[in-house]
């Protein structure tokens, strides 16, 4: 399988006032297409940072991050935003749905960045909402949905534009055991049935178990 993600000698550090805090040290990582990878590690290990680099919402201090053949570190802000819209689907720990939009409208949101017509958008949204099993709750607002349901809407939003990779940051972090299980089942299906490449950060062992591969990060280095 070709590598969807190639991380070469990547380092990342942050500046807080006058201090430089190193977060990632010289990381090398290849992620093949169709992989379901779980990144684990104690808090402060840099796993979320690594995820952010892959998703294109942060830049490495050194090294290169190549996703789908494109070195994302070299793109400017506008290009990066455009790249994200078609290549990355992001799932957050706290769902991050727009509270003023219905489930349908939340999923439709990223599609406004594509050239699809209104009808095509509608079809897409319905399709993915069916996939996540929320076809009957399209017109509900987030505050009318449970945590698990909200996360499913978020997942639907993440796959709506058919991205190259799906990136998930603690997707089950805010859910109870049952809902967490449902979400992980859904993600597994997306990977096995639809061939989606998924990179997931988690500290929940039962969630990590559902992935194919587990890598550990500690103090900014891959174990």
């Amino acid at each position, binding site marked *: 399988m070709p590598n969807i993600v190639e991380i070469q000698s990547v380092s990342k550090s942050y500046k807080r006032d006058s201090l430089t805090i190193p977060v990632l040290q010289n990381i090398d990582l290849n992620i093949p297409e169709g992989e379901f990878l779980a990144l684990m590690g104690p808090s402060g290990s840099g796993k979320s940072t690594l995820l952010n680099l892959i*998703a294109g919402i*942060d830049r490495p201090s050194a090294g290169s991050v190549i996703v789908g053949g494109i070195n994302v570190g070299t793109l400017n802000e506008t290009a990066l*935003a455009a*790249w994200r*819209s078609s290549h990355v689907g992001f799932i*957050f720990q706290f769902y991050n749905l727009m509270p003023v*939009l219905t489930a349908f*409208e939340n999923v439709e*949101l*990223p599609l406004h960045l594509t050239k699809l017509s209104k009808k095509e958008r509608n079809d897409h949204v319905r399709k993915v909402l069916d996939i996540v099993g929320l076809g009957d709750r399209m017109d509900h607002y987030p505050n009318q949905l449970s945590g698990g349901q909200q996360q499913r809407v978020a997942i639907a939003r993440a796959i709506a534009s058919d991205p190259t990779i799906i990136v998930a940051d603690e997707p089950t972090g805010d859910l109870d055991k049952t809902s967490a299980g449902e979400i992980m089942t859904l993600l597994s299906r997306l990977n096995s049935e639809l061939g989606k490449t998924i990179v997931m950060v988690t500290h929940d062992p039962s969630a990590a178990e559902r992935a194919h591969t587990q890598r550990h990060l500690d103090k900014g280095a891959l174990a």
Partner: protein
Amino acid sequence: MLIKLLIKNSLRHKLRTMLTIVGIAIAVIAFGLLRTVVTAWYAGIEASAANRLIVRQSVSFIFTLPYAYREQIARVPGVETVSFFNWFGGVYIDKNQFFARMACDPNTLLDVYPEFITDKTDFENFKKERNSCIVGSKLAEQYNLKIGDVMNMDGDIYPGQWQFTVRAIYKPRDKTVDATQMFFHWAYLDERMKQDSPGRDGQIGWYVVKIKDPGQSAAVSEYIDGLFKNSRAETKTETEKAFQQGFIAASSAFISAMNGMSFVIIGIIMLVLGNTMIMSARERTREYAVLRTLGFSNPFIMVFISGESIFISLLGGALGLLLMIPFVNGFESAMPKGWFPIFNVANSTIVLSMVCTFLIGVLASLFPIQRALKTKIVDGLRYIG
């Protein structure tokens, strides 16, 4: 749908948005009131006609000119009609009734002021009766005057008791014309002066000259002044507009103060709206980060934030304009009657208010936009309101 997102976001915090809109509306009312006062001051200029010249005593408006000048002025090339007036002043009812009381030449009054619309027969009656007068429709309304009523006045500049019978009422041709004036026969005044204060007869206050071609105003003015240079009563001739501007210049300090206050008001609106926008934007830091994660570009975020700001601002402006009219009317009634003969909310004020609120909507969003764009996506995602 994105418009829907924008509007729904604005209404998320109903109370705060409501308060902001009301706050802006109030400031717009204050702004409108001040501007209306300033435009009322300039009302005289608005009413000026390009083909009217005012000839007055060069030292100051309060000194008189000889009636004898009339014929000479009439013969000046370019002059179509010569009329004249005396400021009578005096007291009608009590000292707090402010409206123009003037002696005029009935034969030429309507020639130089065609904007006074009056009934032909009534005006003929006015011309025939020596001690009659013509009043403006707004004045007639204010004092409930009808044709045949007698106006009693106590003269000051021209001492004594005076009585005038209302024989005609004029309507203003448009909004800019002062309909609160009262005119009577100069001949009546002259007669009285010959009796009571000989030596003060044969004098008029100022001439109003209608010229054939407005383009000739400078030339004709110069000519007229040249006729009387070095005489006992030198003249100063200028266009009606310049004459009115002279008055305004005398109150310029006041007008500047009011214009200054208008700016302060605009500043206050900006602060109120800016405050709200900063709070809203700050609360939504995470949402903006999510939008950017999804791939919405920076320009989009800019339009998004400023859109909300402009939306609220325009709503406030519209509400303010709606309430402005009753407020302005309230102010007019609180002022002594006749202070501002013409007191309307000008079209320019309305346009200016809306343009200002729009600009303020844009400006108030600048800081939140800058903040939103400067925040790194990763930091934004971590933000907890």
